[in-house]
């Protein structure tokens, strides 16, 4: 890696009350890389994403997007955050797709995708709509512009959410269990979209329980358990030849999906 990684999270620590959830996690993601994070519930995967996307604040460690330093360790294992403006800039560099979509129910599909472009990025309405239509076509959702989220299936809603996250042209896209709230038959459509994005070299970090998907799509897999990264490495390596006992036990439980 000659250039600075798109995401650099170092020595991340986070506790909820007395319960440590992240214990010294370091995660760097290079441009074009697809990283899958796997692990049992409660292992800290979601918290990691939430810290990276500024939904939670780190107790300790540092966080940077490229050259933009969002939080720095002050030397005493305490994370010090940059000001509002820096955080705002950081938010334009990443997107997040939630497990429960979190679309805005009172907005049409089109508004869901254009509103932040217009209000936050100050694009013209015309420009924003053009971008939205382009993304909807890519998501296989052309013609749904004027529907509201509740008229769509879960899989369609998630694809709108992906379009919404992409609309602001982030450098890196995070997915927090993007198919966990979906019926199996709707899962495939969403996974296909993510697969296509991977083919286009979109930088992505995906928390997932879909092991075969992780193996096929990710460049690198991280197995988290108990707030630490137990094992990480090339995707096929981690899935097919896990080195660590805990990884083996986890993958055995999950079986091959």
């Amino acid at each position, binding site marked *: 890696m000659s250039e600075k990684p798109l995401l650099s999270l170092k020595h991340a620590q986070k506790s909820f009350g007395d319960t440590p959830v992240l214990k010294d996690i370091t995660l760097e993601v290079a441009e074009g890389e697809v990283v899958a994070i796997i692990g049992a519930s409660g292992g800290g995967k979601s918290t990691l994403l939430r810290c990276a996307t500024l939904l939670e604040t780190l107790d300790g460690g540092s966080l940077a997007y490229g050259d933009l330093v969002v939080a720095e360790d002050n030397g005493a294992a305490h994370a010090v955050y940059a000001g509002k403006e820096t955080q705002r800039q950081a*938010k334009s560099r990443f997107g997040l797709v939630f497990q429960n979509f*979190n679309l805005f129910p009172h907005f049409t599909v089109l508004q869901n995708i254009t509103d932040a472009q217009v209000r936050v990025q100050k694009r013209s309405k015309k420009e924003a709509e053009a971008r939205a239509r382009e993304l909807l076509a890519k998501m296989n959702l052309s013609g749904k512009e004027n529907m509201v989220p509740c008229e769509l299936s879960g899989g369609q809603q998630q694809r709108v959410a992906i379009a919404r996250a992409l609309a602001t042209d982030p450098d890196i896209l995070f997915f927090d269990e993007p198919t966990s709230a979906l019926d199996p038959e709707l899962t495939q459509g969403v996974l296909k979209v993510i697969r296509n994005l991977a083919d286009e070299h979109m930088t992505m970090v995906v928390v997932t329980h879909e092991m075969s998907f992780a193996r096929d799509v990710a460049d690198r897999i991280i197995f988290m358990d108990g707030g630490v990264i137990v094992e990480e490495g090339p995707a096929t390596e981690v899935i097919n030849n896990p080195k660590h006992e805990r990884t083996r036990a986890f993958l055995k439980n999950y079986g091959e999906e």
Partner: protein
Amino acid sequence: MELATMMNLLLSGLVFTAQIFLVTLVGALPLGVVVALCRMSRLKPVAWIARIYISIMRGTPLMLQLMFWMFGPYYIFGLSMGTSWKFVACSIGFILNYAAYFGEIYRSGIQSIPRGQYEAASVLGYTKAQTFMIIVLPQVIKRILPAMGNEIITLVKDTSLAFVLGIMEMFSQAKALAASQVSMVPYIIAAAIYWVFNFVVEMALTHIEKRLSYYHD
């Protein structure tokens, strides 16, 4: 007295009734949002002041509150207000009282919006103010409409309390007419007009509810 004359007097009262109604809504609907936000503020003193305010507004009679605003300036500060003060006192009394009730309804609505909505907005880079005005509040309005309907209909009837300030709204007119005519008829007509007023309010609320029914969550 002819029925038409009676009707005219009552309708002249209705003008004041409608005025109190509208002024209260225009003042209390936005003020209620402020009350709700203060009540939910993370700043403890702000939240406590809002709590005490709500408690007093809900815990004492509106009629008494109206008297307070009407005569307070004189008894507390020795100020003698002009004859038009009663309208100001009436507006202050109604707005402050209703803002407390509206505030609690807004709060129930705001607290019912899932956290994911705030999180999605945050990640997209919306400011806190944008998140509230564009994402949260529109959804809140849909959710609180039935509860608001109750309050707004109560308000129509509560306008009759302005009679204690000597404002000749419809109830005062009816009372005066009933006394001078020694008749129940003015009361019955007034009741009918209140009911029609509220019928219109109900229709308006139904209309808004329908307009917001294009989505559910």
